[in-house]
């Protein structure tokens, strides 16, 4: 027990205890920790500094022009978020921070608190056309049910995770694992999920999904049939037939309704696989890493011989995948055999356009929660007036400074894109429930009207200069929470 500092521990000199702290752990105070060899202050109270974008140095931008004597009243350049603000218990106590600041000459109040949400969850959008599992099937983490597969969206599979039933309605372990899963997803960590009778998916906000160990790269522009529909007019007259290879539906221009409407004549092309409707084929190949998410390496392998009664020598054929990553151009010889040729310039444009229309496949995570009566009571003595004030767009709701969409109807049920929030904005309590920051911003006069704790209001300056607070640059793509338009409900 003598001094034997292990080489991966660092010594914290924040206080005379002088803890040795191993990587990933905290000192005796739980306030300082070793993050990858760096001594960091944990969970400080976050102050957003208004700056152009995330990670940029804020100072030069923030320097007020000293010589400026103009009359335009700027808003304050700092916004106190609720991250690390803590919460009060019982709820009738005023929220931990009620802050006033001047925006364009009007006294604005921001009430910040960290809400404890049992009624909360995440909606995860996974950009992939792969079948992840049947709708309504359970999604599991560490073997515990944490949510389910919900109705899919265009080009994406959707999971609905969390919710009060998984958090508190099941076994203790189910609750704990659900809480952990939500926390990790909300804080931008990766989580491995298993769908009953389905795939194993690794999900991380803002990153490409990994389905059964395969990383998705790009979203398709559409299935093979949709691609035909989108590009038929651009191909018309430049080529005699087009096959769009896809692991779900492979499309054939000359047989497809889109081609027929343009008057494209039959070409005698014959595909392997099962024909669904004209110009649409299922199961031309097995799923894989080749063309269009199939196992095809050589595109001609999915064609049978051309019908000699219809086809003609010199027939021009384009084969392309739904992402535009793979393509080949063929011309039929005298024996009606396709011979590969260089792609004509007038067709290469359409191929690059397919590519251009494919977006990177991402997982996106929206946190959704309801601010209940108790949380609202920390803002005002008359909670329903806060709800009305949010409805009437007098109060702006933000989550760690990020804009939220407030769902219409009763209560304050909101959604926020976790990737627009500061890092590690979420916490938890062992109930289990998630702790998320929430800020309500409104005019001081309106705050008084709705029964707010006006006597608890503190000035912004009194908090901003406190060195215990963590200053972050605000993100350029988020509207400034105290902005002039601090009135819009919803996605402002």
């Amino acid at each position, binding site marked *: 027990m003598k001094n034997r500092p292990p080489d991966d521990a660092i010594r914290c000199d*924040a206080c005379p205890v002088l803890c*040795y702290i191993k990587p990933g752990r905290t000192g005796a*105070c739980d306030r300082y920790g070793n993050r990858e060899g760096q001594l960091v202050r944990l969970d400080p109270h976050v102050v957003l500094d208004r700056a152009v974008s995330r990670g940029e140095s804020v100072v030069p931008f923030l320097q007020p022009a000293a010589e400026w004597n103009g009359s335009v009243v700027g808003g304050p350049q700092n916004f106190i978020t609720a991250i690390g603000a803590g919460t009060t218990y019982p709820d009738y106590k005023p929220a931990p921070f009620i802050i006033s600041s001047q925006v364009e000459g009007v006294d604005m109040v921001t009430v910040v608190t960290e809400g404890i949400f049992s009624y909360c969850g995440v909606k995860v959008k996974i950009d992939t056309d792969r079948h992840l599992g049947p709708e309504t099937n359970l999604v599991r983490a560490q073997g515990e049910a944490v949510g389910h597969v919900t109705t899919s969206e265009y080009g994406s599979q959707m999971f609905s995770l969390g919710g009060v039933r998984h958090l508190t309605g099941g076994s203790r372990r189910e609750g704990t694992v659900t809480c952990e899963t939500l926390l990790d997803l909300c804080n931008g960590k990766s989580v491995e999920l298993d769908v009953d009778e389905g795939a194993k998916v690794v999900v991380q906000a803002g990153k490409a999904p990994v389905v059964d160990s395969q990383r998705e790269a790009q979203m398709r522009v559409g299935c093979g049939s949709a691609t035909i529909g989108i590009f038929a007019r651009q191909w018309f007259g430049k080529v005699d037939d087009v096959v769009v290879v896809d692991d779900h539906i492979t499309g054939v221009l000359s047989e497809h309704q889109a081609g027929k409407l343009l008057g494209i004549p039959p070409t005698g092309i014959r595909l392997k696989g099962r024909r669904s409707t004209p110009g649409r084929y299922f199961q031309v190949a097995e799923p894989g890493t080749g063309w269009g998410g199939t196992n095809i390496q050589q595109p001609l392998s999915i064609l049978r011989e051309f019908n000699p009664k219809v086809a003609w020598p010199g027939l021009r054929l384009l084969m392309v995948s739904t992402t535009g990553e793979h393509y080949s151009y063929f011309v039929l010889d005298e024996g009606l055999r396709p011979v590969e040729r260089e792609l004509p310039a007038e067709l290469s444009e359409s191929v690059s356009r397919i590519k251009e229309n494919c977006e990177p496949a991402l997982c996106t995570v929206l946190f959704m929660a309801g601010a209940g009566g108790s949380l609202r009571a920390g803002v005002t003595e008359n909670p329903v007036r806060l709800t009305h004030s949010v409805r009437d767009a007098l109060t702006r709701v933000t989550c760690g400074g990020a804009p939220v969409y407030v769902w219409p109807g009763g209560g304050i049920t909101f959604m926020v894109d976790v990737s627009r929030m500061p890092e590690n904005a979420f916490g938890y309590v062992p109930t289990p429930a998630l702790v998320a920051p929430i800020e309500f911003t409104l005019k001081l006069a309106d705050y008084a009207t709705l029964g707010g704790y006006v006597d608890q209001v503190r000035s912004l300056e009194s908090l901003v200069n406190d060195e*215990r607070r963590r200053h972050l640059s605000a993100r350029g793509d988020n509207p400034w929470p105290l902005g002039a338009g601090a009135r819009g409900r919803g996605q402002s």
Partner: protein
Amino acid sequence: MRQRAQIRILPDQRRLHMQDGPIDLIVEAFGAWDEVQRAYEAAARRFVGVLDELCWELPMLRSPAVPGGLSPKGKIARRMAAAVAPYAGRTFITPMAAVAGAVAEEILDTMTSAARLAKAYVNDGGDIGLQLKPGEQFVIGMVERPERPSLFGTATITSDEPIRGIATSGWRGRSFSLGIADAVTVLAGTASQADAAATIIANAVDLPGNSRIARVPACSLAPDSDLGELLVTHEVGELSTTEVDRALQAGVARAEALAAEGLVHSAALHLRGETRIAGAALGLDAAGLSGKANRSLAHA
């Protein structure tokens, strides 16, 4: 030199918050306002030196208590040594097991000698010292797990009961435990006594040799831990109802023994949602207490 300690009145304008390094106190005194202020001023003056005073003797305070051993100089350190002395030679314990309770006690003493107060408490991260004038009482809320914001019962502590200290220990908390209790809450004569006893009882709530309990040397997590190479609980897997019961029984047996020696007034032991009460029956509000705990109260 810049003052390291943070001292402020909380926004409720009633409670005092003092923090320095790992010490984090919530203090509330009751009485005439000028007396309360005098008490807070005395508490703040005393507080600024506490951490340095402790760190000065830290190596000694981190060494195991042995019969007739350890005689530290500082007043708080002496409280710590006295609180763990009854266990010296019987089991592994260091004065650090009573640090939070001893600090709470010292601040409480400082306040009550400086001012006339009806009652007061000092809460040092869950380890609490109480002061009660005759006729006064505190209602203490009991939570099943630390931070869990739901009370499972309340205990009323009156001035004629010999309870002036409350402490909670468990493996999930800030300090390490040799056992697997989620939380053991102890009511005892003083905060430092409660603190030491909670550590001892939480260590006893255990299933030795169970493969679903991951244990690692304390020093592998915190190189300067007073527990050194001792194996501390790192993770607890699934436990059957019988296992939970067996672990709790081991803890209850230890708690009863300490109660018989007068080291503990009562204790509430929690593991995986199960609760057992040992020692004197608490003035527990039965309505808030689950049936399970009541049953075990009968056979404990």
